[in-house]
Structure formats: C-alpha cells, structure tokens
C-alpha cells in the first residue's frame, strides 16, 4: 500500500552512542544484504569492459527475450489493472455477502510459490493436463509457448493493483460518486471524471509494482516456458541460461538491465508516494 512518511518522532531521544551504533549496524547490514548484490551485478557486467557489455545486450536472443518480457508485462499490467479497477469498484463501493472471502481470494496468488503457480497451468493446459488432450487435438499450444508465459505472469501479479485500489477506494467512500449522480452524471462520467482522478496515484503505484514483478518473474515462467531460445525465453530466463553456460559477463550484462529497471521502479515508487502524499490521496 502507498505509505505516507510521517515526520520523525523525537520526543524521547536516545543517547548519541545508541543512535550512532544502531544506525551504523543497520547501514552495515543493509550494505551487506542489499547494496552489495546490486554493486556486484554492475561490476560483473562490466568486468570485460564496455564493448563486451554492449555486445551482450545487442545479442539477438537477448533482444527477443526483451520483446517477450515487454509483451508479457504489458498484458499482465493491462489485465490486472482492468481487474483491479473492477474488483475495487465492486468491493469498495458496495456491500454484499461473501465480500471478505472475495478479498482473501484475491490475495491467494501471493501465498502460492512461484513454481507451483507455473505448475498449476501445466496441470491444466499441459500435455498431461486436464485440458491438454483437447487443446492438442485442436492445435492450441499454451504450455511451452507465449500464452503460458503470459498466463503465469498474470497469475503471480494478480493481486498487485487490486490490493492498492481496494483500501484506497474504501477510504474515499461513496459521497463523491453519489454527488456526481445527483448532479446528473451517468455511470461512465462518474467513473472517469470523479473516481478515476481520485485513485490515479494508487493505480499508478499498483501498475509500477505489477510491472516490476511481471518483468522479473522467474519461477513461474521457468516452469511453463520450456526455455526455447528466441521464442519462449524472457529476460530473467535469458539471464539463467547465459549463467548456466558460464557466460557470466553476458548473464550479468542482461541482469544489469533488470537491476536498472529495479532502481527505476524504486525511484518511481518514491515519486508516486510523494505525489500521493502531497495531494492527500493516501489511504488510511
């Protein structure tokens, strides 16, 4: 959820040595756990110089992987954004029996291991799967093909946008929508002119998180992909394949793209948090 950043609380202050010690310890820990891996990615990527780095990025297979990742992420974001808007509208603006169960069900994919997330689609659409024989007979290919990758990506990012929007819409209540209706607005006008502008930061925030996870998903996609070069390989899978071939420079070069994406995600996230706070559109 979008977090607000309250001002520091300093009413009861700890002695300087406690503060200094705690800050140093935390920075050391975070440096080891978070910062060092990030640095390692770029260091390994540039180990053989900039030329090798660029060559690895310009590799046609890598470019195919980038294309597939962008496609899967785009579709996941679109599907899950539409779902997020629909689900939050139904859940936040109306009361109906089973509402709380529905909210829990939306969270379900978060609890499932990525590998299992991929497996469930194999069991449904794969050669041995429930619908497998039928699909095969009709010439549809889902597993070890692009549709499977998109489905697995949609599954693992399923709750991201809905989770942002539900508490936000709930906090905003229904008065503004009722106002719009009484003033003569129809359903679309109410949604586009009143509701959507109020939740746009939350929506954007959810899209950023959804996109980051979609582009980086590994476990679920790995199960359904089949690792066909240039066809069913996403960027994280490309990293794995290069790494397993001991082509470390290329693996880290491709990985550095994803690391840059992660950093951009963090910056965008902070910007959106800041904007949302400034506009007073944070849930709770």
């Amino acid at each position, binding site marked *: 959820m979008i977090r607000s950043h309250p001002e520091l609380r300093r009413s009861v202050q700890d002695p300087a040595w406690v503060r200094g010690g705690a800050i140093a310890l935390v920075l050391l820990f975070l440096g080891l756990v978070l910062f060092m891996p990030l640095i390692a990615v770029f260091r390994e990527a540039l180990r053989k110089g900039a030329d090798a780095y660029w060559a690895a990025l310009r590799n046609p297979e890598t470019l195919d992987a980038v294309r597939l990742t962008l496609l899967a992420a785009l579709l996941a974001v679109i599907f899950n954004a539409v779902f997020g808007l629909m689900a939050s509208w139904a859940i936040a603006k109306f009361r109906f029996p089973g509402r709380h169960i529905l909210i829990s069900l939306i969270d379900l994919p978060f609890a499932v291991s990525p590998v299992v997330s991929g497996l469930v689609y194999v069991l449904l659409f794969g050669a041995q799967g429930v619908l497998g024989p039928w699909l095969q007979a009709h010439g549809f290919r889902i597993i070890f093909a692009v549709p499977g990758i998109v489905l697995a990506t949609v599954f693992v990012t399923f709750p991201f946008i809905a989770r942002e929007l539900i508490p936000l819409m709930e906090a905003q209540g229904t008065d503004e929508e009722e106002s719009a209706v*009484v003033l003569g607005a129809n359903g679309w006008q109410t949604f586009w002119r009143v509701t959507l502008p109020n939740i746009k930061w939350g929506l954007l925030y959810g899209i950023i998180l959804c996109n980051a996870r979609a582009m980086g998903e590994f476990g679920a996609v790995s199960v359904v992909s089949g690792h066909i070069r240039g066809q069913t390989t996403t960027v994280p899978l490309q990293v794995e394949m290069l790494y397993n071939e001991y082509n470390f420079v290329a693996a880290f070069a491709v990985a550095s793209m994803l690391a840059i994406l992660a950093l951009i995600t963090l910056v965008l996230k902070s910007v959106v948090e800041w904007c949302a706070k400034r506009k007073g559109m944070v849930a709770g």
Partner: protein
Amino acid sequence: MNIEVRNIEKRYGSFTALGDVSHVFESGKLSALLGPSGSGKTTLLRIIAGLENADQGQVLFGCEDASHRHARYRGVGFVFQHYALFRHMTVFENIAFGLRVKARSQRPSRSEIRKKVERLLKLVQLDWLGGRMPSELPGGQRQRVALARALAVEPRLLLLDEPFGALDANVRSELRQWLRRLHDEIHVTSIFVTHDVEEALEVSDQVVVMNAGKIEQSGSPDEVYDHPASPFVYRFLGHANIFQVAGGSSLYVRPHDFDVFGEHFPGAIAAQVLGCRSVGAIGRIDLQPNNGGDPLQVETDKNSMRSMQVVEGKTLYIRPRASKQYTAAAEI
C-alpha cells in the same frame, strides 16, 4: 411545487428506519427535519433524493410520482454532510460539473457555463475563490461551494444533510443566518436535516420533528415549540421539569416558565437550592422541592438571581407560569 412523501417505509433487516411516514413539504418553504440520531431523518432525506429506495410508499414531486425515478433524473440538489466536493477539481470545476455532464443537446456553451458559475460564486460570496482546490478552503467556504454546486443545475428541490454539522460554533451561526437570507432570495423548496433544535427553530419555516422512524409533529417553529404534540417533542426541544398530578397525568414545565420568589408567595411551592450558576445573562438554579418530588431546573435572569441572594441551601418559592399536561398514555 409541493414535495410529498406518502406512507414511506424503510427497514434494514429487523430494524425499522422509517415506519409509515407521510408528510407534505410545502412549495418554496425551508423545512427542517429535526430529530435525534437514528430517528430516520437522513434516511428520509436520502429517499427523497433517490439515493435510497423505500421498501414501500411514494415520493411525489408536485403531482408526479417520482418514486421510481433514478436520482440522476430527479432534479434535486443535494448537499452532503461532509460536502463531498470533488477533491481533484477546482472550486470552479466543482460548480460547473453538473452543467458539463449534461447531454450535448442540453449542455450550455462554454461561455454560458462560465457566466453561470461566476454568478453562483457571487451568490455564495466566494467570487474570488474559483481557482482554489477544495482542500485549501475552510469548512464554511466548502459548505458554500457545495451549495453553489447543487444550485448550478437549477434543482426543483434542495436537500441538505446536516449542513452545519461539521462546522465550528461561530461559523455555524453565521452560515445559518446566511442560508436563511439566501433562501429568501432564491425561494427554492428546501429541506435540511439537523439534530440541533436551535438551528431548526432559527432557520426554518417548517419544522418536522422525527423520532424512531416516525414523524412526531410538524408545524411552524413557534407552533412546535409552544405546543409540543407529545412528551417526546417537549423533552427534545428543551429541558422539561415534570410534575406528577392526580389522575396519572404529568405536567411539563420549561425552566424559564417559572416565577421565582425569595419569600413565600401564594400558590408557590417551596424548594431548596441545590446549586446555582449563571450562563451569560441567564441564572440557572437547581432546586429540590420540599414536598419530595424530582429535582427541578429553573431559569431566571441573572439580576433577579443576584437580588434574591440565591445560595446553596436557601429556600425559594416557585410557581409555574405556563405548562403542558400529558396523559400517562402519551408518555410511553
């Protein structure tokens, strides 16, 4: 155009929010729906607006049955308790909203909208604030923006839900007089909900007192205050001193309806002072009647309280000047 509600019933599960409510709100009048929390007044207002559907009964706008007409087409202006201004729009855009969402054939031109909004801003005395965001305005000004927004669509009926509920005391009384003057100026049939007795009596032409999903009494503020139809109305409109009288009925007396004497007076009863304090120009005295009845609250002016040298323990003599008698059956 008169607004009539006929045999309205509304239940939430086993709870009856409104039980067979009928009333005619007169054309051009400013009516108050007055009652305690949970009396059904807001529900009635929302049913009139079409924001809620009654389980039974009709809502009539003039001769037209509007019961099944969607809120969007009822042509009412509704001012929400917390204003419900569109937080991402400027004051100007808020007021223009109702005009902008009209179907193209009915939508006024840009310049007409601009002119109209400016006129409304002037009407609510906020003409310099069109470019501000609602969050930048204090409560009283937001309230007036909400009113201007509701008036922009030229409603047949203006509904206000606790219009002054969220405001500071001094802003409240100022805004209340302003609403009264505004109503005298535009004369649109208006209904507002309030739980504040003073507000209802001061602002409205007609007061409708509600309790437990029913209308207890309606009439002009003076009628309702001077002739409360039931013990509930009597007690709700102000403090009541209750005397049991022979035959099982009770006599209700307002604190300010007593004559207070420092010495014995024919027809007056003796009572001992439990405490006294002055509130502004009023002197308020708590008394215990010597005949053993319930403690009484009596009001007199501060000067006479001072001249009688009222202190705790002193015996005073009081005599009801005006009272209202209810039978035991009415009190249930």
